[in-house]
């Protein structure tokens, strides 16, 4: 559940930016012969509605609908009082508080005469909502338009770049606030969390790989406590809908620490372009680290960050120029070393 700062600031996300995104959406509606476009949102699938409208839910679910003209509608299962709050944090959209969002949007579609409607991530949308929409309009066709949406979604505007940069800055400074001398996970992450939320993070998920000698699996503090001699801290952080991930590894072994630090410096200085794998491998080799695996994440459809390319993926949908997170695993003198950071 989101519980950090949730506010719309016109200086950060001008209404004209949202309008421009909706113009792009309407252009693909036209080129794909769609009478309307729908996106579903909840806490785990907020990205599409967040991009189209500037709004992220802290709880519950909703359906956002853009017609060829007029103000888009957002039907949500939240109460009338919460709808008033949504009105203050969603720059464009008429809020419809209703126990049945799908039905409310279906009625709007029926009134508009829509017959062919695009939708993001159709397979993942709760059947209750999709069926409610279909039930309101005889012969309505729901078309999975995720690929079409992703083409405009990857065309990143300056507002998104700035929000992502702010998220990255908060995440990196929060990493510095972690108590790296701590012997237990709780003590390691608590100051990190406080720092990030004081700096206005909308949400933050922290987990720790407590023993890099054993494996690189991250755990939450409710299932593990002790930090071994080498460990890694992972942070997923959102600032006003823009998500980033950061991972940093740490060791108490002085000799190894110097090598970890060199690898981190090489990673920080990496400016990915062209053949990413070759470039990354070379950068790490120069400091005695062997790249064992890597992957890149970017926003796609309704998911904030999804693996789009990597050493274990046969195809790549990575879009250069759009905000991305690079995740790597290296071998340093037989020790696992993990890192992740955002880049554009």
């Amino acid at each position: 559940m989101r519980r950090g700062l949730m506010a719309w600031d016109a200086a950060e996300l001008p209404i004209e930016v949202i309008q421009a995104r909706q113009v792009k959406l309407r252009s693909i509606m036209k080129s794909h012969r769609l009478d309307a476009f729908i996106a579903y949102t909840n806490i785990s699938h907020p990205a599409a509605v967040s991009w189209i409208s500037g709004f992220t839910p802290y709880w519950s679910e909703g359906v956002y609908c853009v017609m060829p003209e007029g103000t888009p509608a957002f039907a949500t299962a939240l109460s009338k009082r919460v709808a008033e709050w949504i009105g203050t944090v969603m720059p464009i959209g008429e809020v419809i508080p209703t126990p049945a969002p799908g039905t409310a949007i279906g009625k709007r579609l029926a009134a508009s005469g829509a017959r062919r409607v695009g939708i993001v991530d159709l397979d993942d949308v709760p059947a209750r909502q999709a069926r409610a929409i279909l039930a309101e309009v005889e012969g309505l066709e729901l078309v999975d338009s995720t690929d079409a949406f992703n083409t405009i979604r990857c065309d990143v505007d300056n507002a998104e770049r700035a929000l992502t940069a702010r998220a990255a800055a908060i995440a990196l400074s929060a990493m510095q606030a972690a108590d790296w001398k701590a012997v237990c996970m709780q003590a390691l992450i608590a100051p990190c969390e406080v720092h990030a939320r004081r700096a206005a993070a909308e949400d933050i998920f922290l987990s720790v790989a407590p023993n890099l000698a054993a494996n690189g699996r991250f755990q939450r503090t409710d299932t593990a406590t002790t930090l071994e001699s080498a460990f890694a801290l992972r942070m997923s952080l959102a600032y006003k809908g823009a998500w980033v991930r950061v991972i940093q590894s740490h060791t108490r072994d002085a000799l190894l620490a110097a090598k970890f630090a060199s690898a981190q410096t090489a990673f920080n200085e990496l400016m990915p372009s062209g053949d990413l794998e070759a470039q990354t491998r070379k950068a790490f080799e120069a400091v005695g680290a062997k790249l064992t695996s890597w992957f890149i994440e970017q926003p796609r459809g309704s998911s904030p960050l999804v693996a789009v390319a990597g050493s274990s993926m046969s195809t790549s949908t990575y879009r250069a120029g759009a905000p991305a997170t690079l995740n790597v695993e290296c071998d340093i003198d037989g020790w696992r070393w993990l890192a992740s950071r955002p880049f554009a």
Partner: protein
Amino acid sequence: MPSATHKARLAALSETMKAQNVDVFLVIGNNWHADYLRYATDFGIQEGQGIALVRADGSTTLMLDDPTECERARAEISGCDVQYAPQLVKEARAQLMRSGNRNVAASPMHLLPYGLVNAESDVRFADGAPVIERLLMTKMEVELDCIRRASKLCDEGYIVFRDAARPGRKDYELVAEMEGFFRAHGIAENFMIIGVGGKEVRGMAPPGGKVLKAGDLVTTELSPCVDGYYAQVCRTLVVGQASETQLKAFSVYQEALEAGIKTVKAGVTAADVARAENDVFRKYGLGQYTTSEYTRVRGHGMGLFLDQKPQILEDVDIELVDGMTMIVHPNTYHPDAGYMVLGDAMVVRPGGHELLCGLPRDLFSVSAH
């Protein structure tokens, strides 16, 4: 080996699956609704989405669409075959198809993906509510232990919240203090909303950047989660000395909470508790403030989901039974003072209740300087 809590849950689930003649029980979850997935697999999902298939013989497959979550599940839980499934819905559908045409139930139905039910297959999903709803509402002793520990952290947490509240602080900075406190105590999840201001405030929401000032009412509900189980507490404080008007208004909430709590025992309905709370408001001519125009519910169940059944409303006739856990909270708007909250958590018992909250039911106040 599965934890003691999970072992007990699996045994209970297996029994109800048998009673309902269910061969495969499909549960879906995400960070909003993690409860069903947690019950069946013990995994507290944080990012992405997950689907688990629990079979009658107890074998369970957990599919997750996030690779890091998948590795976390492998580290944190046992007794499940954990699989990375970037095409989650397609993979779940394929596994169901491979298992043949059997009696499949699913929960929660409101999250069941369109891609599962719209496939060209002969898999039909029965509503899994009869299999799991009662289990989620009525807790076993091992589950109650978790909720008791969470309640203790509610009490301690509220003191941290109160001490952090002072003029000049932003609402999200208060949340930061709380989250730091909970993380330091190993609590990975918490739900909290907040209200700051005067009579213009109509409810609680996520923090929006408001700065606390003298005279403000600060409302919050804290809901830390221990081993998947949430407890909750609701309290109100005033920045500075509470006014006579604020104190008089708050006394209605104190009386309503007491009336609601007195009513709680096995055998009464959720409606009985709501009526007891609302009657106090009606007695003072404040009946309209008990309606959905001003308030959502007068309390609710809590457990693996923090806002689970039964919702405490005058039209909910669910009978309270021994072992249910709930919060009674007559939170609403008061025309003279603004939005106020007050709520205590408890376990339903045959002759009454076991109160979990140890905080005074006061209108707290903090220094305005």
